[in-house]
């Protein structure tokens, strides 16, 4: 069945270091969305990428959608303690254009 995997599962960084999480889909996606979930919180939408090769930036966060629209990455420059949380990518399911399949998530811990 359709799968969306993320690596790494966990990442523990020193504040100020960079962080990257990678998302890989078993199928071609029409779009990829990224959500952040703080500890004890709920997923919050960060961004959506639609075009092949698209790159979007939000302050220290850079999001990229692969040329084949099967992979994506989120890069955080100079992490801060406020970046702590789990980052999920989510793509459209093959059986439905609007239902999402979530990646396995990458949990980011930041040492102050």
């Amino acid at each position, binding site marked *: 069945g359709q799968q969306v995997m993320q690596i790494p599962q966990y990442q523990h960084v020193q504040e100020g270091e960079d962080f990257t999480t990678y998302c890989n889909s078993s199928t071609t996606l029409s779009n990829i*969305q990224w*959500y952040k979930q703080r500890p004890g919180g*709920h*997923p919050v939408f960060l961004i959506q990428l639609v075009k092949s090769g698209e790159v979007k930036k939000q302050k220290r966060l850079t999001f990229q959608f692969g040329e084949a629209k099967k992979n994506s990455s989120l890069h955080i420059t100079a992490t801060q303690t406020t970046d702590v949380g789990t980052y999920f990518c989510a793509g459209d399911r093959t059986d439905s254009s*609007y239902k999402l399949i979530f990646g396995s998530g990458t949990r980011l811990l930041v040492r102050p």
Partner: protein
Amino acid sequence: DAMVIQNPRYQVTQFGKPVTLSCSQTLNHNVMYWYQQKSSQAPKLLFHYYDKDFNNEADTPDNFQSRRPNTSFCFLDIRSPGLGDAAMYLCATSREGAAQETQYFGPGTRLLVL
């Protein structure tokens, strides 16, 4: 502010005792979803309503049911909770059932089964 509201935030129930979780939204979105999220896992879709149309996921246990009496409210009923049903239950909405729609999540209800 428009939002997705879930009550209660924490729910404790006994093994086998029916429990209902509620979700309301002020976004006037057509689609409402219920997800189950266990510790360190991704949210897992249980079912959703597209307006009044109910759509169940193939692997959602019969123990889980849902009601949507109107656009604003949606309920998750667990008929006979088992220990394995302890989880965070997330309600989400999207404006339409269309490709590339963003989902807006409520704060979740954490269910504990004793």
